[in-house]
C-alpha cells in the first residue's frame, strides 16, 4: 500500500482523537478552576480545619505519578466505590483532580500577591470579607494568575497522552492502534506529534489573546 493514501485513509480516525484529547485537557483546566480556586481561597482565608485537608489533597495529587493515579482510580477507587465509569471519564476526572492540585497553588500565590491594602481599603468602605474577595481580590488575582495558569495548558495537553494506559481513545491511543494495524510507525507517530504541537500552539495563542484582552495598566502583562 502506498504511504500517502494509507495516511489519508487513517487520518480521519486519528483526527477524531483531537476531540478526545481536547476533552481531557478542557476538563482538567475546568476542574482546576472549579475545584482549585475554592481550595486556594480556603488555603488563604480558611481556618486550620479547612487548610489542613486541602494541604493533604494537594500533597496527594502532586505527590503521585499520573500513571499511578490513573491506575489507582480506574482499577481501584472508582470500581471499589461502585462506579462503572468509562476510561474517558476516569481520565478526565483524574487529570482534573490532579490539575486542581497544581492550579490551586497558582491561584493561592496570586491571591497572596495582592497587596494587603486592597483588602483593608475594601473593608474600610464597609464591604464584608466575602464581598471584598469577590469584587476586589479575585479580579486582581485572576489577572495575576493568568500567565502561570496558561502555562498549565501545555503541561496538561502533553500529560493527557498518559490516558493511553487505560485505553482512552485519545490521540496517542489512536496512533498506536493505527500503527498496530498498518505496521507504519514513524509517519503515524509523527502525524500525532504534529497534531499535539498544533494544538499546543493554537491553545497558547488563544490564552495569550485572553491575557492581552483583560490586561490592565499596572498589572503583570499590562503597560507597566
Amino acid at each position, binding site marked *: 500500500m502506498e504511504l500517502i493514501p494509507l495516511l489519508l485513509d487513517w487520518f480521519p480516525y486519528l483526527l477524531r482523537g483531537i476531540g478526545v484529547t481536547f476533552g481531557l485537557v478542557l476538563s482538567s483546566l475546568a476542574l482546576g478552576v472549579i475545584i482549585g480556586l475554592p481550595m486556594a481561597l480556603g488555603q488563604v482565608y480558611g481556618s486550620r480545619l479547612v487548610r489542613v485537608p486541602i494541604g493533604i489533597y494537594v500533597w496527594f495529587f502532586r505527590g503521585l505519578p499520573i500513571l499511578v493515579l490513573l491506575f489507582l482510580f480506574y482499577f481501584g477507587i472508582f470500581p471499589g466505590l461502585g462506579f462503572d465509569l468509562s476510561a474517558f471519564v476516569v481520565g478526565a476526572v483524574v487529570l482534573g483532580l490532579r490539575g486542581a492540585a497544581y492550579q490551586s497553588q497558582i491561584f493561592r500565590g496570586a491571591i497572596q500577591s495582592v497587596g494587603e491594602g486592597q483588602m483593608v481599603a475594601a473593608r474600610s*468602605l464597609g464591604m464584608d470579607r466575602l464581598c471584598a474577595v469577590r469584587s476586589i481580590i479575585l479580579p486582581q488575582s485572576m489577572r495575576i494568575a493568568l500567565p502561570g495558569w496558561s502555562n498549565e495548558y501545555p503541561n496538561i495537553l502533553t500529560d493527557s497522552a498518559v490516558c493511553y494506559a487505560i485505553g482512552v481513545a485519545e490521540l496517542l491511543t489512536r496512533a498506536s492502534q493505527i500503527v498496530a494495524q498498518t505496521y507504519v510507525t514513524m509517519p503515524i507517530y509523527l502525524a500525532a506529534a504534529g497534531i499535539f504541537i498544533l494544538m499546543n500552539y493554537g491553545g497558547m495563542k488563544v490564552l495569550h489573546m485572553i491575557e492581552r484582552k483583560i490586561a490592565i495598566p499596572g498589572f503583570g502583562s499590562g503597560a507597566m
Partner: protein
Amino acid sequence: MHTDEYILKVEDIHKAFGANEVLRGVSFEVKKGETLVFIGSSGTGKSTLLRCINQLTPPDRGRVWLHGEEVTNSGKRINYFRQRIGMVFQNFFLFDHLTALKNVEVALIRVKGMSKEAAREKALAELRQVGMEDWAGHYPAELSGGQAQRVSIARALAMDPDVILFDEPTSALDPELTREVLEVMRTLAQQGMTMLVVTHEMGFACNVANRILFMENGVIAEQGAPTILLTDPQYSRVKNFIGQFLEYNGD
C-alpha cells in the same frame, strides 16, 4: 443615650502589639463639622488610633460611639459603621484593577446597592469635587500620587460618611503634590465635613484644625485650638514640636 451634640465619642482606647503598648487610654469627642488634627512623633499611636475607630485594628480596651451607637463590639454591624466612617490612607490603596470612576463606584454598587446609573452619577460628582472628573477613565497606575489620593478622597466621600479619617494622607507625596491634596481637604473642612486627620503638615494643622491633639507615648498630651496652643505658654511641648517642623521648613 449620649447627646447627639457629639458625632463621635472615643473612650479610653488601649492597644498593645505584643509588649509594645501603642495606645494607653485615649479619649476625645468630635462635634459635627469639626476638624481634629493629630500630631506627634512617629510611633506615638496616631495611625493606630484612627484604625481603632473604624475597627480595622480592634482596640484591646475602650469604646467608640458614633451618634450614640457603639461601634466597638458591634459584630457584623461594623460594616454599617464603616460606611459611615470614611478612611483615606497614606498609600491611597486605590483598587488597582479599577479605573478612577469604578474605584468610587464599586462600594456604592456592592455595599449601598445603588443602581449602576445612580452610582456612576454620584461617583462623577465626587470626582468633580476633588478635581478628578477628567481622569475618571484612568487606572491608578496612570495617576500621580496626588491624583490618586484625590480619587481615594472621592471614594471615601461617595459613601456620604459622617466623618472621614485621614491617615497621613500626604506623607507619601512630593511637596507639590501635597498641596493639591491639602487644598481638597481644606475645602472639605470648609464645607462642614467632620474630619480626623493624622498629619505632619503643621501649616494645615494650624490653619484648618479646630483642635490640635498632640500625642505622646500613646496618650493625648496636650490639646486645644491652634491659636491657643501656639500662644499660651502653658502648652510648651506642642509648641516645641511644631517649632521643629517650622524650622526645617525654613519659615
